[in-house]
């Protein structure tokens, strides 16, 4: 579970930050996704407390906000403790050997880095490709992937 429970001061800070995020977007048309993106950027996930807060501010039920969080692959309810490499497993990268590369990645990562699957990064002409944060990498082979993993770990 993703939460900022613990120190009272941390709770107050987090709440203030959350209020600021909500306030920054509340006037927009359809503010929920922009708010969720920013909450996740700030906290690494969408905490349960945030769902309650956002629901209240936008006049939605908690179930509605939870349903939205649950629908999209990007939103996490718990933070990912490991660094993440998103490896493309869609067709154009498959045609350039991404399946074998994924098996290699799991072994090389050895539990130190989370290897996540994404379907297409729009780099289908130069695959196999991967993304780390907002950094993009292409023409991956085992050696290049090893480097990425070691740098991320």
């Amino acid at each position, binding site marked *: 579970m993703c939460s900022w429970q613990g120190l009272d001061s941390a709770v107050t800070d987090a709440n203030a930050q959350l209020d600021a995020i909500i306030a920054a977007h509340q006037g927009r048309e359809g503010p929920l996704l*922009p708010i969720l993106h920013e909450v996740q950027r700030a906290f690494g996930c969408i905490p349960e407390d945030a769902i309650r807060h956002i629901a209240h501010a936008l006049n939605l039920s908690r179930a509605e906000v939870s349903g939205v969080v649950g629908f999209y692959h990007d939103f996490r309810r718990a933070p990912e403790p490991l660094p993440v490499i998103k490896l493309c497993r869609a067709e154009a990268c498959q045609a350039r050997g991404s399946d074998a590369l994924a098996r290699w990645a799991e072994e090389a990562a050895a539990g130190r880095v989370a290897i996540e699957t994404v379907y297409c990064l729009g780099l*289908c002409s130069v695959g196999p490709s991967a993304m780390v944060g907002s950094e*993009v990498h292409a023409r991956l082979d085992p050696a290049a992937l090893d480097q990425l993993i070691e740098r991320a770990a």
Partner: protein
Amino acid sequence: MRLFVSDDAAAVACGADAVAARADALGAEVVRTSSWGLHWLEPLVEIETDDGRIGYGPVAAADVDALLAGELEQRRIGDIASHPFIRRQTRLTFARAGRTRPLSLDDYAATGGWAGLEQARAIGPEAIVQQVTTSGLRGRGGAGFPAGIKWETARRAAGPRKYIVCNADEGDSGTFADRMLMEGDPFCLIEGMAIAGLAVGADKGFVYIRSEYPHAIAKMEAAVRLCAHLVAPFEIEVRVGAGAYVCGEETSLLNSLEGKRGEVRVKPPLPAIEGLFGRPTVVNNVLTLAAVPWILANGGPAYADFGSGRSRGTMPVQLAGNIRHAGLFETAFGLTLGELVHDIGGGTASGRPVKAVQVGGPLGAYFPPSLFDTVLDYEAFAARDGLVGHAGIVVFDDTVDMARQARFAFEFCAAESCGKCTPCRLGSVRGYETMARVLAGEDAAANLALIEELCETMTFGSLCALGGLTPYPVLSAIRHFPEDFAR
């Protein structure tokens, strides 16, 4: 010394930033441009000379010292504008690709930018729609619906508030033209949206970009700020998706913009009549909207002069997967699949024989070389149980196992289904399991019969094309490559 290096994400993913940084450190003036789309040569570096720009590629950061010392002649490509891969194209939408700085308003204006919008302002809504209708432009996002008819519907719908929504969700594997356009020529898309706004009476636009495209998001946000005064009172907001393929479906996208789960809506009502927040909304793909400035500047009939059959104008084809000359190839409709794969694409990158080509993304059919006479044209592809879609062409060599590809089609559908209809939500899982049995050699004949039945249920019982067209890749794989299923 002046160098040109692209800042397109494909170039960057191949190391273009490091190349630019090294050149800069060595005292060269580095200009970051859009990409020409010759991706097999990225990072491509052009050097300004008295005889014009001379291209070298691919160039790694470690090659830059040699390049600047004039010692990288083995990578010399020459003048890119006259490279056969460029010369054989008809670049209307991608006319600026490789030539301009993406966020330079000066470059944009100096290359004909805003001429379409100016014309649109001069002729007014009805005439704008008329130009788009006569151009024959059809939706480039997949379904190929005539843009003029959609615009006319929205124009006639009662206001006052209407929206232009640009679908930049580009989830199809093998496609990247939307990304390249947004990163390389963002003002062109904005101009197209502003023209659409004038045509239908909308003063607000949204660009919905998938979250996997951070570079495109940054470029579009910057471009929107830079040219706000030029398109006013039309206003644009960039919105970011959250990793759901189905949000590329237009009604799912609208739900997502409204802050809801990205479930597909039942049509009617059409979005053009009742779309975003229940208001008349034009939803168009990036390439559809980006074709519009050219059409307004040069006239609908000039655009319609290109093409084949009822597919008018040009299509930015994306050559992807295991293909030698991978990249962006904008051409009038009418080339054959074989010409695209072999003559232009140069066959496989691995040097092995081509076995299969998937056209139109994960919902598109697999074509064997025996069908390479199929012409790039919406109707010609449909006649062969395939689709042009967003015109991504993914090439596979003879090491591909088509039974695995068929299984993947189900796997993808199961992962991305919005869950609204049973044939899609459950059928995809059943299909995956059944195909896994075929792969394991368990009673292939009976299991394939089951899959045929399942596909029929999905085709006829699905609300949108995710469930409805997943049978395309599955059945085409079974039909054209039976040997891979006899296990």
